[in-house]
């Protein structure tokens, strides 16, 4: 570790706080986003503990209602939306492109601080007053209670700016800063998915901005756009809200698709099956994602015409997503499947995300949705998509890029144990919720009828297992920072530029000279050097990729 890298070239606090280096900004996001996840997770455990039995278990109804609301707001706006793009996108994207930085480094730093400011404003709501009613802020409830809503809306508005600026930055970077030879067809699929995500961020987020402004004014002044008491229309608010918030689901899931594509390709040593389809369908999903928001509103009182149109388009978007899953499975065909921890998460994703996807199709069926809407079935569905999709993929990506980010290897055995715990805990937590939902248990319920007790207890027990798994990950990752083995340049034998053309951890300027790309991101048949098995440690400076596997992990 004697060479200069982005971590050690200047260690002062100031050099971190004012850094324009995309890698350091990514690390700062990682810390901030992890803290949000921790806070949101603790709230989730409190919620699950309260639901161990009907009636009051550990908290009052008001405390419960505020807990699940804050859990949602933190997890969605402060964690999932920035998680993959702002952390891994920031760290990896410019290197994968062969660029020295993102197009607008100062804007990048600004968006980090804007994010922090937004999160701080939103959390002020905790101190100032109650915020309940979930992250959807439906009027007129949201305009009729507590001043906390003013802070939450302001916070979401500000965090939205951060999201827009990040997306804008990435789009320009991908368009204008690709290394010579890195054509669109050679891009890693992670880049494609971040590209699609960024489009959604740029197009959708401004609408939540104006929605929050109007909601803020409605609460503060009573302007009568959304408040029915003044002649406004609460369903119109739902249109505004979901015009952003449905595409936001794709802000959350598309980057996960990218990570999974990278992992499947890399750990199968195989070109990702249907590369072009997977790449372009991400962009297609990003656009189609704007045309389906009304499927959140089948029973809201909107017109039947719009319900029917939204339902039809919902199916159309399901198909490319389903085909992607099949492509990922096909990628392993005739490959060389290496079951390291990141790959375990990718395989786990295929399981949990597929369940999330199929239950999504069930919810898109007009008549069936009438029964399932706003029940635990929906809760289970979006946790399978958000957590089983995004968080599992983010964990896979974190384990995959951890050596590159920190220069240290984590403990593989503990990694696998934690992966199994997360898998079991996750499914035990959320699968029973499908059954609760089909049986008619509504969501956002503090109290419930006795017949639902068993399934709720099971779900809560699962959440504890999940909690243990996640804390174990936190433990061994932190441990690896101090005690972990030094990571080689390319421990996984990947073909993308962050592994083949730079050191571990990367140089402050990423590359000593601009890389010239001659093959696609998964063209293993053009990379014979990977299969020589000479065990030499690559330094990442060469034009030719050199790869090694840490000896302890070569056999698996």
């Amino acid at each position, binding site marked *: 570790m004697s*060479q*200069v890298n982005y971590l050690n*070239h200047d260690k002062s606090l100031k050099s971190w706080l004012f850094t324009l280096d995309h890698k350091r900004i990514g690390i700062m996001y990682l810390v901030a986003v992890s803290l949000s996840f921790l806070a949101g997770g603790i709230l989730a455990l409190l919620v699950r503990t309260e639901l161990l039995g009907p009636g009051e278990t550990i908290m009052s109804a008001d405390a419960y209602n505020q807990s699940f609301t804050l859990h949602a707001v933190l997890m969605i706006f402060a964690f999932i939306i920035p998680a993959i793009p702002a952390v891994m996108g920031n760290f990896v994207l410019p290197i994968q492109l062969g*660029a*020295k*930085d*993102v*197009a*607008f*480094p100062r*804007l990048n730093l600004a968006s980090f601080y804007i994010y922090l400011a937004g999160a701080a404003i939103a959390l002020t709501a905790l101190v100032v007053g109650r915020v309940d009613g979930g992250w959807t802020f439906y009027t007129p409830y949201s305009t009729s209670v507590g001043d906390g809503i003013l802070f939450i809306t302001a916070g979401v508005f500000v965090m939205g700016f951060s999201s*827009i600026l990040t997306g*804008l*930055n990435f*789009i*320009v*970077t991908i*368009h*204008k*800063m690709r290394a010579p030879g890195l054509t669109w067809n050679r891009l890693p699929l992670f880049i494609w998915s971040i590209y699609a995500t960024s489009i959604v961020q*740029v*197009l*959708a*987020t*401004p*609408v939540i*901005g*104006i*929605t929050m*402004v*109007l909601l803020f*004014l409605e609460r*503060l*002044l*009573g*302007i*009568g*756009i959304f408040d029915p008491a*003044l*002649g*406004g*229309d609460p369903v*119109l608010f739902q*249109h*505004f809200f979901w015009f952003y918030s449905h595409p936001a689901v794709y802000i959350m899931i598309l980057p996960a698709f990218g990570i999974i594509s990278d992992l499947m390709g890399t750990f199968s040593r195989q070109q990702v099956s249907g590369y072009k389809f997977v790449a372009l369908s991400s962009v297609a999903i990003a656009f189609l994602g704007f045309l389906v928001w009304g499927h959140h509103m089948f029973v809201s009182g909107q017109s039947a015409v719009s319900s029917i149109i939204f339902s039809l388009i919902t199916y159309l978007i399901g198909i490319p997503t389903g085909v992607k899953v099949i492509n990922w499975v096909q990628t392993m065909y005739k490959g060389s499947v290496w079951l390291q921890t990141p790959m375990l998460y990718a395989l786990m994703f295929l399981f949990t995300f597929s369940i999330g996807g199929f239950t999504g199709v069930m919810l898109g069926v007009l008549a069936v949705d009438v029964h399932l809407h706003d029940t635990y079935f929906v809760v289970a569905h979006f946790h399978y998509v958000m957590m089983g999709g995004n968080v599992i993929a983010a964990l896979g990506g974190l384990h995959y890029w951890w050596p590159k980010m920190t220069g240290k290897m984590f403990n593989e055995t503990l990694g696998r144990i934690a992966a199994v715990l997360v898998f079991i805990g996750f499914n035990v937590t959320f699968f029973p919720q499908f059954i609760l939902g089909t049986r008619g248990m509504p969501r956002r319920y503090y109290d419930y009828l006795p017949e639902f007790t068993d399934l709720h207890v099971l779900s809560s027990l699962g959440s504890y297992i999940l909690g243990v798994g996640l804390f174990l990950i936190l433990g061994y990752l932190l441990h690896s920072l101090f005690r972990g083995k030094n990571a080689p340049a390319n421990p996984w034998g990947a073909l993308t530029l962050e592994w083949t053309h730079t050191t571990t951890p990367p140089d*402050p*300027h990423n590359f*000593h000279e*601009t890389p010239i790309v001659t093959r696609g991101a998964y063209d293993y048949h053009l990379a014979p050097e990977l299969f020589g098995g000479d065990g030499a440690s690559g330094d990442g*400076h060469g034009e030719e990729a050199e790869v090694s596997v840490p000896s302890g992990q070569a056999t698996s």
Partner: protein
Amino acid sequence: MDLKPDERTMASTAEHPAHLQHHFVSSDQQFDAAKMGMWLFLITEILLFSGMFVAYTVYRVWHPEVFDGMAALLDWRLGGLNTLVLLASSFTVALGIHYAQVDNRKGLVTNLVLTFLFACIFLVVKYFEYSAKIEHGIVLGDGFAPHGVSHGVDYATYDVMFAQQFFSIYYVMTGIHGFHVLVGMGLFAWITVRAVKGHFTSAYYTPVELCGLYWHLVDIIWIFLFPLLYLI
């Protein structure tokens, strides 16, 4: 192998102009990136306003007679004047960029100053429009209660159901637009100072170009607000 950072940057800065940031390969790449970034920013602005246009359309479709009637309270002469003022300012910005491209600093500065002045006029007119309405109880939110008579208009007759929706939309739309005008004035003050100092040449005028794009968008939004609110 272990190049020190400064050696590395030296190697690549040899023929680099001062405005070129280290992570770009060429001025053109930097200019194109900045411009594309600006266009992306502009569409976020358009989508920000789109919410208001949707609210306007929805309520107009529901209550066409109310919206028709309320437009009469907005003075088309003042709105029209402001339209001409903003169009003129767009023109001066475009002229300014033209002069920047042909290295005419005086032309650039003159036009930037003119643009700034037009923006001032716009806001002054807006101020008179707002205050005339607020005086008669046409406000944003709770206190909405049109009353009083002036210029032969009995405001109380405009206190009908859904009139508030029209004026809420009017205030939020023009308010957000006015805020953008204010921001634009700040930007023009800044680049005028830089232009006077001679920061811009035909080789480097990116900030002028970007502020210009922003200003044209503010103009375009008004081009739509004017007929929707004042005329139809």
